[in-house]
């Protein structure tokens, strides 16, 4: 992964999570090490959950986009769009490109956006489907129709934040945000932008909740469906150094793999894919497994997937690997989850305390951190943070 311009530098960071708005609240939750408490049904913002018993979901605590964005222009935006815009603006502020929403450094044509999202348009599709099915398709709101398109939320980020370099939306399920980092690296190495705000977002909505409920996932011990958004600002390392940027961490490796099941099952927790992705990421980072001090995993409480992911970690890094599982604290946020895990890795790399480990112990200032994510369909990706 180390091209002519070196590794990718992480120069900014933002997080919206079940712990609240902002990276500091997220970091505090990681240090505390206790799961964020599922909201009682009446407390949910995203949908009216009163009809459901113990919905076992968490939202971004106290999410209020008006704090950063004001209250104009938000009416037709759906929840995922608001999450992404707020997270992107926080990241642009954190890196110092913007202050109070205005450009301070760099310029619109030099900064782009790469974002993972698995099911972001569900809320809008449901809203419009309700109108079409219960009233008439002639009455659907045309101002909300664009929200039904998968890349719409990412597009709105460029509109709100005036990012006019490339805008890429990625829909690869759980590993999507790690894949967004791999995609960003290709575009940065190709010189298509000076910096890319990269990450992922997922929004809670009733259809998403119902899908997981019907599949039985919400009954799995330890599993909690969540939402969130996290972004990192990625720049070529040499560019970041030459402009004197604070480098929070370096992304030195990326690997991804797909493995089909032997039968015709669609859902496929693949230890083989996860292991191959980890090994490819380590190889591209030129890091030996013995030098990996921490794994920030995607373990979520879904037993077959956790077993496959943990098996791959043991097989590729070793049975004594120190394994952290942020989803056990802030919920499974699907397309955002890889970005939240990368944020956790950057935090740990800079000496942040991890309050509850899944396995092993929490190292102080780990040298190399592997972030893993296993998809539901046989796809898996891994990133190395150094």
């Amino acid at each position, binding site marked *: 992964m180390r091209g002519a311009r070196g590794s990718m530098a992480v120069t900014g960071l933002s997080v919206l999570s079940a712990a609240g708005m902002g990276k500091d609240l997220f970091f505090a939750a990681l240090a505390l090490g206790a799961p964020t408490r599922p909201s009682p049904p009446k407390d949910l913002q995203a949908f009216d959950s009163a009809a459901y018993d113990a919905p076992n979901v968490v939202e971004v605590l106290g999410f209020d986009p008006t704090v950063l964005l004001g209250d104009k222009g938000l009416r037709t935006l759906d929840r995922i769009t608001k999450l992404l815009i707020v997270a992107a603006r926080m990241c642009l502020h954190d890196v110092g490109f913007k202050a109070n929403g205005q450009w301070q450094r760099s310029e619109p044509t030099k900064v782009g956006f790469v974002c993972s999202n698995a099911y972001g348009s569900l809320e809008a599709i449901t809203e419009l*489907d309700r109108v079409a099915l219960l009233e008439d398709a002639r009455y659907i709101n045309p101002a909300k129709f664009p929200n039904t398109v998968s890349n719409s939320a990412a597009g709105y980020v460029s509109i709100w934040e005036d990012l006019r370099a490339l805008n890429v939306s990625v829909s690869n399920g759980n590993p999507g945000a790690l894949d967004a980092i791999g995609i960003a690296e290709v575009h940065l190495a190709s010189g298509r932008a000076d910096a890319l705000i990269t990450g992922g977002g997922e929004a809670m909505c009733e259809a998403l909740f119902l899908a997981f409920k019907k599949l039985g996932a919400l009954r799995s011990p330890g599993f909690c469906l969540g939402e969130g958004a996290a972004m990192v600002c990625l720049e070529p390392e040499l560019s970041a150094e030459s402009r004197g940027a604070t480098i929070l961490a370096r992304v030195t490796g990326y690997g991804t793999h797909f493995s089909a099941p032997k039968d015709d099952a669609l859902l496929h927790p693949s230890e083989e894919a996860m292991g191959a992705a980890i090994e490819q990421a380590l190889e591209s980072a030129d890091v030996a497994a013995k030098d990996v001090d921490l794994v920030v995993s995607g373990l979520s409480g879904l037993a077959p997937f956790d077993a496959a992911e943990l098996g791959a970690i043991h097989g590729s890094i070793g049975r004594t690997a120190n394994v952290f599982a942020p989803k056990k604290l802030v919920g499974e946020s699907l397309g955002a989850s890889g970005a939240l895990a990368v944020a956790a890795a950057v935090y740990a790399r800079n000496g942040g305390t991890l309050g509850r480990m899944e396995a092993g112990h929490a190292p102080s200032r780990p040298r190399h951190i592997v972030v893993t994510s296993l998809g539901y369909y046989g796809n898996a990706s891994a990133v190395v943070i150094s």
Partner: protein
Amino acid sequence: MTGLYTRVVQSYRQGSAGATGSPRVFITGVGVVSSIGIGKQAFYESLRAGRTGLSKLGAFAAGDLGRDIAGEVKDFRAEDHMTHAEARNAGRCAHMAVAAARLATKDAAISDEALGGTRVAVVMGTTMGEGALLGDLEGAWIKSGEGAINRADIPRYGSTLLPIHVARALGVSGLVSTLPAACAAGNYAIGFGADLIRMGRADVVVCGAAELLQELQFAGFVRLAAMAKERCRPFDKNREGLILGEGAAVLVLESEAHAVRRNAAAQAEVLGMGLTCDGYHITRPHPDAAGSIEAMRQAIARSGITPDAVDFVNAHGTGTKANDVAETKVMHDVFRGRRVPISSMKSMLGHCMGAASALEAAGCVFTLETGVYPPTIGFETPDPECDVDVVANVAREGKADIILNNSLAFGGYNAVTCFSRPYKVPELGLPARVLS
């Protein structure tokens, strides 16, 4: 030809971005599922003949929307291209994607063994993926409650699945990725696929896009007042808007070394790609077309050529007032008064959304292979606001060494890919078999 040849060689020697001195990327296979033909040959024949694929909508009832014409693929049968188990696991969008991928790999005459390694990637684009499947799930829930939802159908929904199904069908085990870039998704997938090969991340990339007609999308475009009643007439003064379509197109991209090793026949070469975002409006192109202009300039510069080397532009050409005027501005600004022929395949296919620019990329390969520009059918009255050299109604023979595939999309996305005939460049030591 000599001038072009010299420029291509120079660009490689100078290592200009995109054509870079890094591995060349060839298109060795094309697979198409469209309303004007399934399979490359049928598609090519229809492009040459200027056949329309538009017909009365049969997939669903349009009700009182006042529009009922679409570019529907009516003769597609999933079982002609996949096993029963494969078909059962997927929705119609993935059916078309898998069929196009199998047609493309067959056209490339690439072996299962060559597709099986980790150096092979699948990158697919779409706008709404399995929207019809989701519509069924939501319909059951909204009308009859949670208990009516078919649990088995839930995992079959999701754009994530498009490349997964293709990878399963072909035995691919490398990178699989969905880039939902709306109406520019095909160009995104092809351009990113070419980047993966140039950067040494893959030897073969199976890439393209798929989209199916579905009710919510159809109603949405009617409500946006963007849909024409009967015909899509891009660049015509009396154009009324777009007509929706569906389909899939997949290309097999290969690195030069991989193509040489298996003695493959190259049909075209992928040069550069331009990518920008307007950052202006979620559905409308920027009135100054600044982002589109920049994307086309990037595609040209990254191909190591100058605008005077471009012979033809396969237009985005939706037939809406705003798009066609913006695209005209791009042509004027980039080509500075030179009237480069332009044509919109959407006049025949309708606007196949996520699949559109992949189908148009397949059309670009057709043009490069045959020297024929596909026509913009239904063109009657020139529009002073669209003062471009439209290939009107009848296919036109012309120079076809280097062509551009232009696309714009919801979200302000602009993506332009540049393709060339697979030139023989003896200084680079490439064997004629690949380049002939």
